């Protein structure tokens, strides 16, 4: 039989684990003559092997829920087209401003050339104006030395320098990568930033943000949700006891939470690493009992078979 002319129900049933002993014999006989099914079996099962769940999957599920919440917040009827309209408006306005600025510059050059203003005076005014309005530029090293004879002129830069940190600090913070520097975050924002930091590999930043979220908004839904993601992160970092505390806090926070299966999964893994076998077994049994269709059940069963 050539490739492609077989519907391969037996192979697919085998991949789903729904093959009876009689069907298994039939499949063996069929595979001897059907190249199409041999290819499907070998290449399809290669994908079945990529099934395992990982400790960070609770965090991923959390992120997917956050993404769906962001989706809910967006006015769906507007979609993307108005965004492009907004973008085109911005471009249009920018073009107008650019055109105006270019015209003003040209006019200024013409006027300047006509009135023959000394170039040094113009540049000094320009520098002073920039210094007065730009804390970043003014905070740059002052080219005028302390022993410069024009002490009177140095007052202006020094005043600007005094002002510079106060004005420049927020901007410098905004530019920095420190996720904690962002002012007045809400609980959803902190959770999102913590998850982003974790995704980008900034574990230390994620830990700080998770802690800040739980300290600042201890009773928020996000703080409760974060316990599972934070616990998974701690587990990845080898802090099994701290991770266990997070999972336990989540499980104790209230019953019927959305991530209870994930919290139990994390708790079981933390207990496994701490060598607390009897508690681990109880956790896996609880997970199987309460969430029999959970994707973590196969892992729990494996652990029950291997846990001491």
């Amino acid at each position, binding site marked *: 039989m050539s490739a492609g002319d077989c519907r391969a129900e037996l192979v697919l049933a085998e991949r789903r684990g729904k093959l009876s002993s009689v069907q298994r014999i039939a499949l063996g006989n069929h595979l001897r003559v059907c190249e199409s099914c041999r*290819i499907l079996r070998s290449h399809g099962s290669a994908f079945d092997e990529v099934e395992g769940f990982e400790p960070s999957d609770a965090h991923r*599920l959390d992120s997917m829920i956050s993404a769906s919440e962001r989706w809910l917040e967006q006015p769906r009827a507007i979609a993307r087209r108005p965004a492009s309209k907004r973008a085109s408006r911005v471009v249009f306005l920018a073009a107008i401003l650019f055109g105006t600025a270019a015209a003003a510059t040209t006019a200024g050059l013409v006027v300047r050339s006509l009135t023959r203003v000394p170039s040094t005076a113009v540049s000094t005014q320009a520098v002073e104006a920039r210094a007065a309005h730009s804390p970043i530029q003014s905070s740059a090293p002052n080219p005028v030395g302390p022993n410069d004879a024009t002490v009177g002129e140095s007052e202006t830069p020094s005043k600007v320098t005094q002002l510079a940190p106060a004005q420049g600090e927020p901007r410098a913070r905004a530019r920095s990568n420190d996720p904690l520097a962002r002012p007045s975050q809400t609980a959803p924002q902190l959770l999102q930033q913590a998850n982003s930091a974790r995704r980008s590999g900034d574990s230390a930043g994620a830990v700080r943000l998770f802690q800040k979220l739980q300290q600042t908004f201890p009773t928020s839904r996000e703080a409760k949700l974060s316990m599972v993601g934070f616990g998974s992160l701690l587990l990845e970092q080898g802090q099994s006891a701290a991770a266990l505390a997070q999972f336990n806090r989540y499980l104790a926070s209230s019953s019927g939470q959305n991530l209870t299966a994930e919290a139990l999964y994390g708790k079981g893994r933390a207990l496994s690493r701490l060598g607390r076998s009897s508690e681990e077994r109880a956790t896996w049994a609880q997970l199987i009992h309460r969430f029999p269709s959970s994707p973590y059940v196969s892992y729990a069963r494996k652990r029950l078979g291997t846990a001491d």
Partner: protein
Amino acid sequence: MANALPSSGDVPSVIRRTDELLAVAREAAQGSPPAVRALVLQVGPAVLATVRKVLGSSHADLDDVAQDAVIALLDALGRFRGESSVMTFARRIALLTALAARRKHANRLKYLNVVWLETNHELDEPSPQTILAAKRRRETMLRLLDELPEPTAEALALHFVLGMTVEEIAESTDAPENTVWSRLRLGKQALRRRLCANSRTANLLEEAE
């Protein structure tokens, strides 16, 4: 948006009996936050598993693509007419999202399975040879999917990656069974040609039998 989802009376009885997620999906399509959350919680692991099958376990964009798949699913709920189960629909959306992401970042993927080899699975670890053979098969398949026309690639991916039958693919893609069969035949023939051209993979295939 919500109107496109079938009411209970429009849904085939088999699906109505078995698909507990349909009511949740219907409410989610109407923008109900609890329903959206419940739906994502239910289909999330399957979406993640599907994305992982295509991208590999350690892909840098795994999280982002999984989130994109969830958004794509929520956007697509309005077009869902109950042809398949909600779970199958979610897996299909995830598969298409992941395949698109893979095509977009194709040149980064060659590193994926190397990392996968080092990090995946604590229990019942297969031998390195088995892992290597499976990895090569996946790569052969995924590269072929990158190159095939989209309808053929989708049918082949649903069949090979998600293990769906011809009937399920026909239901899910709203295409006649004969069309699906024809697409699968074309796809399998292309795969066979690819395997024959790559003697190393063909040898691995023979060894696995």
